[in-house]
């Protein structure tokens, strides 16, 4: 394993990102969004990279998380910590249901099922507009108040997001390094063999879905608090696409790759949208380039550069060993 893929280094890079963003980005909101989407993309990576499941359902959990925050913070005045727990649990529960049903089929049929669920939940949110605010969404979602008043300053909320990000990122890293994580990789690499050995493959896949859904819903709740709005757009299939694009652009070979993917997407979108109205074309082009030439994403490129500059000797040793 390359040094940069080791769990401690991955966590160190996540910590470095948290510390670096305030130094280099003027907008605390953009910095917080980068971390929130990094968390969500990492959760998607748990499915895509570690379990081999291409899910178009991540927007469901993201939207649910933001609606839980919107509904319980604005209408019932439930404490923030409890709202975050509720969002996480609901995300896990719905992801378990979606995952359990979707993994009945494989390949393109699995993808179609997650897409169908995405549309189903979108229209549920759209139909029950009394609860969700319909196309207007839910407004006036407050930020947390940890005793010193609401975190109206974007950078104070950034600290809250950063702590959440680091804790959840560490937990996901731990999960990928555990027997559970290694089993997911075994399932991804050869599902029949994993089943033949005796692993309950469906249970593992469903568990991966549950973890991914829980983290994504938590991120959705954070996003609603950050922006103060829980819009219908959060539960649209476009959100699922965006999360997948971030994950794919970053690469699916390590969790920190998703942080790179989310940061690249968010920062480039912010810069490019000011320069050219058709900036999404460039994003499409980037995706085509990644699909054709960088199948391990930006992280794959970083790995190559790392080997080229820092671990050439290790790479040579590996080649010699192969001979």
């Amino acid at each position: 394993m390359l040094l940069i893929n080791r769990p401690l280094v991955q966590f160190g890079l996540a910590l470095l990102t948290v510390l670096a963003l305030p130094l280099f980005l003027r907008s605390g909101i953009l910095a917080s969004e980068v971390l929130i989407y990094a968390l969500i993309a990492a959760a998607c990576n748990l499915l895509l990279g570690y379990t081999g499941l291409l899910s178009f359902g991540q927007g469901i959990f993201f939207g649910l998380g933001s609606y839980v925050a919107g509904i319980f913070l604005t209408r019932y005045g439930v404490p923030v910590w409890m709202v975050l727990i509720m969002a996480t649990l609901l995300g896990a529960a719905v992801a378990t249901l979606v995952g359990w049903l979707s993994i009945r089929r494989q390949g393109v049929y699995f993808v179609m099922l997650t897409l169908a669920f995405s549309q189903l939940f979108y229209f549920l949110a759209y139909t029950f507009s009394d609860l969700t605010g319909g196309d207007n969404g839910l407004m006036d979602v407050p930020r947390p108040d940890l005793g010193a008043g609401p975190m109206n300053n974007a950078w104070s909320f950034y600290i809250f997001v950063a702590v959440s990000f680091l804790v959840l990122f560490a937990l996901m890293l731990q999960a990928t390094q555990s027997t559970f994580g290694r089993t997911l990789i075994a399932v991804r690499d050869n599902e029949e063999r994993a089943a033949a050995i005796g692993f309950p493959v469906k249970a593992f896949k469903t568990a991966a879905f549950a973890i991914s859904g829980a983290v994504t819903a938590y991120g959705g709740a954070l996003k609603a608090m950050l922006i103060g709005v829980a819009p219908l757009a959060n539960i649209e299939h476009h959100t699922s696409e965006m999360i997948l694009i971030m994950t794919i652009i970053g690469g699916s070979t390590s969790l920190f790759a998703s942080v790179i993917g989310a940061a690249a997407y968010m920062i480039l979108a912010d810069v490019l949208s000011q320069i050219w109205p058709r900036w999404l074309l460039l994003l499409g082009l980037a995706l085509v380039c990644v699909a054709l030439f960088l199948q391990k994403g930006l992280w794959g490129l970083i790995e190559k550069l790392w080997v080229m500059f820092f671990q050439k000797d290790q790479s040579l040793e590996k080649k010699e060993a192969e001979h």
Partner: protein
Amino acid sequence: MIGRRKLLLSTAGAGLFLASPGLLRHASAAGDVLKVGIPVPISGGNAANGKYASMGAIIAAEEATAKYGREVKTFDLDTEGKPATAVRKVQDAIQQEGIQLFAGGILSSESLAMGKEADKGGANFITTAGADEITGTECNAATFRWSVPTFGAINQSIRPIIDALPNAKRWYTITPQYVFGEGLLQATKDVLEEKGLELVGNSYHSLTEKEFSGYLTNAIATKPDVLLILNFGAQCADTLRQAVSFGLKERMTIVVAWASGLEQFEALGADLCEGIYFGAQYWHTIDSPANAELVKLTRAKYNENPNYSLAGSYICTKLMIDAAMKAGSTDQKAVQAALKGMTYAGLTGEEHVRPEDNQVIKNYYLLKARAKSAMANKDDFAEVISSGQSFLEVAKTGCKLS
């Protein structure tokens, strides 16, 4: 083994990559200028409206720079037509750029959210969005609106048609299911009920809908005399194209309650629009000194006539700038005090900012599209059939500004 130097070098490299957007912005930061944020959809489905809105704001800024002798600069904030993005851009503009004046917002959902954000953030916001709530139940001291709300738009667009077509008894509506559409639909129901006419059916659609043939088939099945289209922008254009290709123009009268103006006619073409009625907030041939000036400035700068998006953004930006100049600062309360009750020579004649709900009182127009052969010039798509003012009394708007 990695040396400390290599680690520091690679960290610095990564930092530079991440830093570049921030550094670029620092470098381009403006000095002592009056800044106006223009939060409009520059990308996404309503990008065309956003482009013209940006152009209109620039004209207003240039005009003000010449008039007041102080540099006025507009900052485009791409909302992508999404409330969450819009709010983030406004929050950033307030906190990072210190902008306190905002003119923009084309979709109601994004405008509602931005108005609340401006109120919280110590700024002021003026919009052309249509939802009644903006100066109604969700009004706030920092949010102003130039365009006529749904009540006035419906009253000024369908009452003249009811008078002109006494045999049009059966009406069918196609409505986007969000605040703006609901407001238009409710106002339509009220007018039809008052006039003893029948709403034979309504089709709701979402803001993401692009295919309207199913709704049009439903409309045909109910055999209405009038098809009233209550959606806006690209969706309205799609509905009209599909309605005309289904042959509805020959079977019934088609009315668009809230047209997006000249750009919509240009996109659809005269042949398609001929004979269709359009409700409009603005038309470039309006006979007023302020409009004549805007037409002159727009032709000089862009070599074209102003459309609704451009004109709406122009007047909103101009109002914000004039209020700030009158107040002598961009302070939230001072600008509000300057705007409230202001009467000025507007694009539609004399316009007035009603202080009780921050709603601008202005004319709304009903247009009828001409045949291509009757057009005097390339932009002479329609004639103004009628114009007038219809506004709910403040007590009925639900707005409670303290």
